[in-house]
């Protein structure tokens, strides 16, 4: 049943296919021309996706906030003003923002904040704009365009000419997008003449005119009340070869809505349907909005009856409701609310709906009557039950005090209990009033509601906010009708919290009141420790004690007996919360005794047991007793270590055997193990030699197992004859229980097939008794290779026979991969009918869809709609509708059929699967498929649920590969048009490409990361009159290598030169061997609180270190904080400098001194100051210091810092000092959560030391490291093998690696290299290529931190 529905749905995408195919050739991309137009609807701008992936390199909290904004937008299409204000605050604190971050914030201030009034949003954006200007954030045309868009969305009536002249004064040239938006501005006023003027100007400049402009014109005419002209634009568009889109029609429909021409509206909607232009729900809501705001509300039900309520409808509805309430259209908003889809609870009842509605009513300052009316209505309609509660909550949240009291009254009338804490938000929101009158007013109001302010209210909310002397505070509170007792107790507590113990004592001794012991105790203890003022402590304690009898007044429980001695005991016991209480306790006890106060025995006993070994004679005299205890620390014992032989690798084991043989120890057992290892390595030569050798030894028996291994190795070396020979031997030896591993059988059968002996192979498969082993990845791929060899030769029958035999005899667990050859064999012969039939068989039989994409592409290419439909139906059975549709999208895109792809993506309710799109993008880029990538960009345009940044970035990479700067720049402009913020990554890539080509860059290239963290606040550059010019002179001189001029200029005008330019100067100075000058410039930057670009900073530090200038480095080091030091690996350089200067020993001693004097507080810093990378240099250059190093390392390790010993281990490991390395490992490192072995990888890579890296892989098998780390090691291993051109080892190692880690953990480039090898060998490579990001993550994974 469902499948009928489904297929009828697909028909829509595929039906027009045949006829479209002829006309819709794949669209050429051109960064500037018409087809790249984006659509913008003018009757009410829609929230576009922010579509950004802010790169993690900048100020993290700012980035985190922006990221969460972005997520909100994607989820709901809206964000809150508070979020934006937080971001603004963050920018202010950081005193900087990148160009793309600022672009993002600007763009947030439009309809993305539907619950705020447009005027407020405009104010907000202007505030942001000014802040950014003040901070000197570089702004380019994209920022101005974004500002324009926000103005339009907020219906802000700015003057286009002023806007243009402002841009001109800043020297920024408007572009196509700027003019388009200015046209819209004129159109808002219905000023067609103004719009036309700009249009003519654009024509003059030969700027392309696209659909946006026409939509604006339609809007303009309808604003002017000229619907005929508005409608006429459609035919103008047709003449220009542009088809009207859904947005075009919506704009027009809104125009008619304004005039209430419902019949025309209905006609137009019909026309859309005929033309296959699908109006989305939000388009209908736009029409409703136009009706409501133009006094045509009577038609709203007509339009609302047309909405389809697809996924996402509710979010759109919410946004429109909020906007309508802001516009004062409560009725229309309510009408939409009633159409919202309500989900059900697990018990079948409906989820409530409408909370946001009530919230917005309160927010938009509706009067009590309206709010109560809707609350009742929602309750009656069973939509939202506790409307009044919610409205009250919101009014408290927003500090709407008057409304809050009114609502509280309503609640009270309904019999709801009014509680203390309801008033806390009101007190809090009055806290800024320094006179305290606001707070007093709330306190008085509370009493009108019969709520007497409690201790808690006074202590936590009122008293901390009341300023002034204690006496003034007391009298203020008296005005609020608060009893003196309550006030005094609260006041004393608060004073104690502020550690003002003397003042507290004064109050306590002058105001008799019940000082609640439970409230006062802990603050009193803390205040005593903070001040050491025992006298005041005793005073307060005394008054607590004296006033205990007043408790009766506060307690309902009349027979409460008060035990003063017990209360005092509790206070004393509370003193033991601090470690060093013994001294103070002594003093307190002495004075208590003087005061004549006594404590209970229970309290004394409790104190005694707490004191433990801290008890002194004097104290025990005071308390009367003494106890003591002693502990003997048990020293840690060390355990011996060794690697068991079965965990050794070939090298280790060979060495061991050699070793033992020289001592005449029996080694047969170890050799047997060696044979297994040789088998794993596929090393026939060594194996044969060893077996030959073993045959002669007396106590060795050649078991069936060893023959089987030998057989397999022969088979792997394509020696069928010898393999079968061994097979017979095995058979004879194991008469009783003869069986062979599956993988060994497959290997021999495969060999037979390779030699054309299919029948023999099948017989072998059928008749050989076998042992089912673990069917790992390599087994499956082994089987696949056999099947594939037949498929590639187009041997249909043979393939079927083999496949059936394998299935019948249960050799395989069916997977998509294994079914692939069955389809492939037909495609090789170009027999699509048979291929599809086989595909259907796969689906029906196994619910698997092998070779689907290839099939789909073939069908699209030959335009076989019927078969494509069938394929998609089959796919839907297995993968579900959405996945199948996405697959279809990519297939269409790959074949250049953009129109079809887009149609699918426009499907209302098609859920977003961003990962699928990103994967596709990356695949296209890698495979150099630019056309499909462009196609995907066009197909996803304006679909705001899809994050398109990745598409743009991948396209940019492709264009750069093609060396086409115009297309690259065209992408940037187009992103403005589509209201997307380019990522820093995008801008850096584009900017540096343009620079390389000697072209001007129309935006500020984001600077590399280190600069984004200004350390002090003084690094902003004061705006010069013509900064651009000054800078460019400096740049020019720099370019001409006129370094002396630059240095001099820097001395005179230090603040005028940007960090980037300074950095360049530093670089040039170093290149000219003027290191001292370079250091000077660096120090100059550091003194200003910034530092050179990270890359150059590192370069400089390296140079300084290489010349052994320890003092210079120390001078620089003093000016850096820990974070920066880490970023530039400062301590490693320092270490290096010491080595060069011959001071390695001194340096080690300094490190030793550090750790000797480490405290808990500074341990982390000391740990970070240990040069994990540089220390290796010490070991390398000064082997004589190894012992010293180990001693120091152990000291570090005893404090939990294993890094130093890790370095030593690395050294031992590389030097093959296996025993020492293992000992260190077992004693200190094996449980460490983070092990560094980057140096080993480096060394292996550098020396192409296959053995070293192989040992490391073996070692890690027994270690506790992440899959990422293992992947990293294997990546290196593969690279070394590739470099040595050991192709077969590459294949083997790769497959081994996959047994241990998922392919995502292997370095992408390594995988790509492996893929090349496979291709060279003519082997099919069927593994997914890991995505870029993943492999980056993994590379960073175990780099030292």
């Amino acid at each position, binding site marked *: 049943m469902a499948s009928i529905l489904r297929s009828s749905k697909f028909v829509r995408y595929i039906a027009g296919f045949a006829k479209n195919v002829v006309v819709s050739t794949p669209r050429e991309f051109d960064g500037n021309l018409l087809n790249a137009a984006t659509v913008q609807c003018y009757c009410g701008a829609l929230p576009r996706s922010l579509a950004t992936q802010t790169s993690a390199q900048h100020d993290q909290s700012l980035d985190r906030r922006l990221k969460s904004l972005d997520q909100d937008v994607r989820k709901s299409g809206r964000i809150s003003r508070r979020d934006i204000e937080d971001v603004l605050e963050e920018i202010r604190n950081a005193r900087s923002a990148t160009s793309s971050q600022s672009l993002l914030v600007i763009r947030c201030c439009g309809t993305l904040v539907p619950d705020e009034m447009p005027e407020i949003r405009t104010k907000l954006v202007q505030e942001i704009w000014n802040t950014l200007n003040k901070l000197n954030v570089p702004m380019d045309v994209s920022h101005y365009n974004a500002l324009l868009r926000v103005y339009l969305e907020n219906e802000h009536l700015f003057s286009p000419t002023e806007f243009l002249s402002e841009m001109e004064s800043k020297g920024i040239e408007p572009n196509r997008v700027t003019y388009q938006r200015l046209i819209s501005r004129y159109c808002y006023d219905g000023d067609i003449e103004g719009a036309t003027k700009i249009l003519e100007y654009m024509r003059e400049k030969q700027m392309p005119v696209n659909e946006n402009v026409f939509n604006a014109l339609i809007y303009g005419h309808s604003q002017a009340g000229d619907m005929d002209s508005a409608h006429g634009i459609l035919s103008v568009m047709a003449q220009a070869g542009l088809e009207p889109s859904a947005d075009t029609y919506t704009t027009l429909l809104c125009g008619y809505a304004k005039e209430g021409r419902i019949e025309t509206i209905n006609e137009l909607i019909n026309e859309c349907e005929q033309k296959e232009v699908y109006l989305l729900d939000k388009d209908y809501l736009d029409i409703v909005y136009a009706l409501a705001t133009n006094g045509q509300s009577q038609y709203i039900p007509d339009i609302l009856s047309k909405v389809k309520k697809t996924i996402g409808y509710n979010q759109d509805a919410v946004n429109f409701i909020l906007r309508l309430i802001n516009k004062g259209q409560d009725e229309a908003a309510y009408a939409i609310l009633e159409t919202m889809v309500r989900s059900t609870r697990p018990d079948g009842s409906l989820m409530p709906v409408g909370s946001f509605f009530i919230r917005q009513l309160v927010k938009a300052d509706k009067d009590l009557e309206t709010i109560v009316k809707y609350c009742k209505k929602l309750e009656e309609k069973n939509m939202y039950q506790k409307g009044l*509660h919610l409205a009250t909550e919101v009014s408290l949240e927003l500090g709407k005090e008057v409304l809050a009291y009114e609502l509280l009254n309503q609640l009270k009338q309904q019999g709801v209990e009014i509680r203390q804490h309801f008033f806390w*938000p009101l007190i809090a929101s009055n806290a800024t009033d320094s006179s305290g009158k606001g707070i007093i007013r709330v306190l008085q109001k509370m009493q009108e509601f019969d709520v007497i302010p409690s201790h808690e209210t006074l202590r936590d909310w009122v008293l901390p906010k009341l300023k002034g002397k204690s006496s003034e505070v007391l009298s203020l509170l008296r005005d609020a009708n608060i009893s003196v007792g309550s006030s005094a107790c609260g006041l004393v507590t608060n004073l104690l919290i502020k550690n003002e113990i003397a003042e507290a004592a004064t109050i306590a001794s002058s105001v008799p009141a019940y000082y609640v012991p439970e409230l006062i105790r802990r603050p009193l203890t803390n205040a005593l420790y903070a001040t050491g003022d025992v006298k005041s402590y005793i005073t307060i304690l005394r008054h607590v004690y004296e006033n205990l009898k007043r408790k009766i007044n506060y307690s309902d429980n009349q027979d409460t007996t008060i035990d003063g001695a017990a209360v005092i005991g509790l206070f004393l016991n509370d003193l033991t919360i601090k470690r060093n209480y013994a001294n103070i306790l002594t003093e307190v006890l002495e004075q208590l005794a003087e005061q004549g106060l006594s404590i209970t025995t229970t309290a004394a006993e409790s104190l005694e047991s707490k004191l433990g070994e801290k008890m002194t004679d004097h104290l025990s005299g005071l308390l009367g007793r003494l106890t003591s205890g002693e502990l003997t620390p048990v020293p840690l014992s060390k355990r011996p270590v060794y690697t068991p032989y079965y965990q050794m690798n070939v090298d280790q084991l060979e060495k061991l055997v050699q070793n033992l043989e020289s001592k005449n120890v029996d080694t047969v057992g170890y050799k047997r193990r060696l044979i297994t290892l040789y088998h794993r390595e596929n090393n026939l030569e060594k194996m044969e030699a060893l077996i030959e050798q073993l045959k002669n030894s007396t106590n060795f028996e050649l078991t069936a197992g060893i023959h089987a291994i030998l057989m397999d190795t022969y088979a792997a070396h394509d020696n069928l004859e010898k393999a079968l020979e061994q097979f017979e031997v095995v058979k004879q030896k194991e008469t009783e229980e003869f069986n062979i591993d599956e993988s060994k059988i497959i290997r021999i059968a495969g060999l037979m097939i390779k030699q054309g002996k299919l029948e023999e192979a099948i017989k072998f498969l059928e008749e050989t008794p076998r042992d089912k082993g673990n069917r790992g990845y390599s087994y499956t791929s082994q089987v696949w290779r056999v099947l594939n060899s037949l498929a590639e030769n187009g041997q249909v029958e043979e393939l079927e026979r083999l496949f059936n035999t394998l299935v019948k005899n249960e050799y395989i667990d069916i997977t998509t991969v294994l079914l692939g050859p069955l389809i492939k064999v037909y495609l090789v012969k170009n027999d699509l009918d048979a291929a599809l039939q086989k595909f259907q068989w796969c689906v029906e039989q196994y619910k698997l869809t092998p070779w689907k994409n290839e099939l789909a592409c073939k069908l699209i290419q030959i335009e076989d709609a019927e078969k494509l439909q069938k394929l998609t139906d089959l796919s839907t059975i297995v993968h579900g509708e959405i996945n199948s549709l996405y697959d279809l999208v990519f297939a269409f895109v790959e074949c250049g059929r953009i129109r079809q792809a887009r149609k699918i993506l426009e499907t209302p309710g098609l859920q977003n699967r961003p990962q699928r799109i990103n994967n596709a993008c990356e695949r296209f880029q890698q495979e150099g498929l630019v056309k499909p990538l462009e196609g995907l960009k066009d197909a996803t345009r304006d679909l705001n649920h899809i994050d398109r940044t990745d598409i743009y970035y991948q396209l940019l990479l492709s264009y750069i590969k093609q060396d086409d700067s115009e297309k690259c720049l065209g992408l940037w402009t187009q992103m403005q048009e589509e209201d997307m913020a380019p990522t820093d990554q995008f801008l850096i890539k584009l900017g540096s490409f343009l620079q390389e080509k000697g072209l001007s860059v129309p935006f500020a290239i984001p600077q590399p990361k280190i600069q984004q963290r200004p350390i002090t606040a003084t690094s902003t550059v004061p705006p010069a009159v013509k900064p651009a010019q000054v800078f460019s002179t400096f740049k020019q001189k720099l370019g001409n290598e006129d370094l002396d001029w630059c240095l001099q200029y820097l001395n005179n005008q230090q603040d005028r030169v940007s960090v980037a330019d300074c950095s360049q100067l530093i670089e040039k100075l170093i290149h000219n061997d003027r290191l001292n000058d370079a250091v000077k410039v660096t120090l100059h930057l550091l003194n200003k609180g910034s530092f050179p670009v990270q890359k150059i900073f590192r370069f400089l530090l390296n140079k300084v270190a290489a010349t052994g200038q320890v003092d210079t480095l120390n001078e620089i080091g003093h000016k850096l904080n820990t974070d920066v030091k880490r970023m530039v690996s400062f301590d490693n350089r320092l270490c290096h400098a010491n080595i060069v200067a011959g001071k390695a020993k001194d340096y080690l001693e300094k490190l030793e001194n550090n750790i000797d004097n480490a405290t808990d507080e500074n341990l982390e810093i000391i740990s970070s100051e240990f040069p994990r990378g540089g220390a290796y240099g010490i070991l390398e250059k000064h082997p004589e210091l190894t012992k010293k190093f180990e001693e120091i390392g152990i000291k570090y390790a005893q404090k939990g810092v294993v890094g130093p010993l890790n370095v030593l281990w690395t050294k031992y490991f590389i030097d093959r000092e296996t025993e020492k390395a293992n000992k260190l490992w077992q004693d200190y490192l094996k449980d460490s959560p983070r092990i560094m072995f980057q140096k080993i990888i480096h060394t292996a890579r550098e020396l192409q030391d296959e053995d070293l890296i192989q040992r490391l892989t073996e070692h890690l098998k027994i270690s506790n490291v992440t899959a990422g780390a293992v992947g990293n090691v294997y990546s290196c291993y593969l690279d070394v093998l590739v470099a040595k051109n050991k192709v077969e080892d590459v294949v083997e190692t790769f497959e081994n690696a996959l047994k241990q880690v998922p392919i995502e953990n292997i370095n992408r480039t390594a995988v790509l290299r492996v893929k090349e090898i496979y291709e060279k060998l003519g082997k099919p490579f069927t593994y997914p290529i890991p995505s870029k990001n993943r492999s980056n993550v993994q590379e960073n994974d175990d780099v030292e931190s």
Partner: protein
Amino acid sequence: MASSTGRLYKLYVSNIPWTVSHSELRQYFSKYGPVNLATVIFDKNTGLSRNFGFVFFGNRQGFEEAQKLIEHKLEGQVLKVAPSTQDQE
């Protein structure tokens, strides 16, 4: 720190309606056993409820009883109840 009295029977309660404060929370949970302390967390700056809090039971029985009930409902809202992860102090 000074003396560990062993486990604390501490519950983490969230999704508390804004109308509920300490005493209401204590009253509700008292039916499962003696409650030493019940507290709702309020935002220091705004005075608004953060809609979560903690209940300290005096004995294990109450602590466990309270977790047995699948759905706790207080003033029309379903509470989320879980043992607090910091059970030792």
